[in-house]
């Protein structure tokens, strides 16, 4: 409890550090905040060209929205994943990147990774805003679902924060973590149905049936991935415009809570040794 109080007391510091990241990020660039859109836009173009035009991946049309545009469908999954991946990678490096602060000033260290959640989240909010505009232009009726989208975004932020907290500590002790994680993130993205629909996995899974004589299928294993649930919920809300599957939604919440609790616990335990270990 006392720890929570301390973290709460540093919320102004958290806000200021987040602002530092946001303001410092695109200083002295001509396009400024627009740069945060360029990355997802470039990935969207590449993936759309390769997967929709060349490989002919065809996700089902949105039900009941009736949308059938690969690029938009892709963005509904790609933007949340990019946010997750950025938070984890930047949050992980946040302690190492602020050696000067950690070794010279006392403050609740947790604000460093959390400020990354804030600054990356700010960019994400901007991207999602643009996505909503695009969805509306193409005739999706997203408005009633926006509150739930925001809730899911918060859940994903909590999940990402939890993972970032764990890895931030690991990265101080083993500097390999950052290189390792950037590879993991690439693999993770392809293991999540972002650029292909999960139905393709289901088809393969049915072909093989239960694994090793059990009733567990490939699809069951595949769906352990928490990001699969998050992406599913985002698509149901934004692309299909319908209530999210309650099971998916509940699992998102459980994953978020579990990751954050473990992350906080690990971080708290090693917080005091950080200045020395750096």
């Amino acid at each position, binding site marked *: 409890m006392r720890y929570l109080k301390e973290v709460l007391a540093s919320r102004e510091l958290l806000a*200021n*550090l987040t602002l*530092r990241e946001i303001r*410092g990020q695109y200083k002295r660039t001509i396009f400024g905040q627009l740069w945060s859109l360029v990355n997802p836009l470039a990935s969207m173009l590449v993936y759309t060209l390769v997967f929709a035009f060349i490989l002919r991946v065809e996700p089902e049309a949105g039900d009941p929205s009736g949308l059938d545009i690969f690029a938009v469908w892709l963005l509904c999954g790609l933007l949340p994943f990019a946010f997750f991946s950025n938070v984890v990678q930047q949050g992980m490096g946040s302690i190492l990147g602020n050696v000067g*602060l950690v070794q010279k000033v006392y403050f609740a260290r947790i604000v460093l990774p959390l400020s990354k959640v804030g600054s990356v989240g700010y960019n994400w909010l901007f991207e999602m805003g643009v996505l909503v505009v695009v969805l509306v232009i193409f005739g999706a009726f997203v408005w009633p679902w926006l509150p739930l989208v925001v809730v899911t975004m918060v859940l994903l932020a909590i999940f990402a924060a939890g993972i970032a907290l764990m890895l931030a500590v690991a990265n101080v002790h*083993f500097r390999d973590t950052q290189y390792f994680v950037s590879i993991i993130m690439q693999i993770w993205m392809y293991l999540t149905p972002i650029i292909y629909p999960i139905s393709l996995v289901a088809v393969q899974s049915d072909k093989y049936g239960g694994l090793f004589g059990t009733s567990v299928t490939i699809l069951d294993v595949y769906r352990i991935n928490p990001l699969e649930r998050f992406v599913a919920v985002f698509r149901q809300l934004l692309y299909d415009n319908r209530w999210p599957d309650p099971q998916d939604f509940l699992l998102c919440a459980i994953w978020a809570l579990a990751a954050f609790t473990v992350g906080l616990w690990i971080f708290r335990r090693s917080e005091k040794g950080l200045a020395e270990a750096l």
Partner: protein
Amino acid sequence: MSEVAVSIEHVSKKFRLYHERNQSIKSAVMRGRRSVHEDFWALKDVGFEVPVGSTFGLIGSNGSGKSTLLKCLAKIYYPETGSITYNGKIAALLEVGSGFHPELSGRENIFLNGSILGMSKKEITAKFDEIVDFSGVEKFIDQPVKNYSSGMYVRLGFSVAINVNPDILVVDEVLAVGDTEFQAKCAQKFRDFKNQGRTVILVSHSMTSVREMCDSAAWLSHGELVKVGPADETIDAYLDSLPGASAA
């Protein structure tokens, strides 16, 4: 004895001297154990009390554990054994301008740095003019700090820190910043601090400034407390212990 501001009891601090440090997973796996190290005690059973309203000096040669003790006081390191209890709000000034972002303006950096040092936005706003005034960089306050001269940079950092207004201020040899005029201002600020009944703990190699500013002092040598008492006596004892003492 008067009230105690900081009480340090049996503080010991250990560091690991790594012979082979495993900072990569590969080396951890290959060697099968985490690392090879030897313990080094930077502080051994140090204990003394700092009375409220005093200016307290920590002296000793290089590597005597002064800075380690200071970092323990600042809650950056945590002692292995013993405890440090504070009576009031503490602020540590181990480096000036910590967390300044070079691309941000002086104004933005005052708010950022102030909140890192534990001030609320309200406090900073209230003190803003005083901070700017003290630093003497009014003209450039809306310029990015990367364009500041190193003196301006340090002065701005120092001004923020000195305006945190803690009950106990812990200072590492940062007194030597800025020009003579600025140093005089700092010395005045420390005197004001003292007059307001606040406690200052400082580390310095300059015996003149310690003698001038401090009432009491503690002398550390190789992590052990040698002597604690009135500043003049402790400084004399320390100087006498040095080879070629008469020259000092």
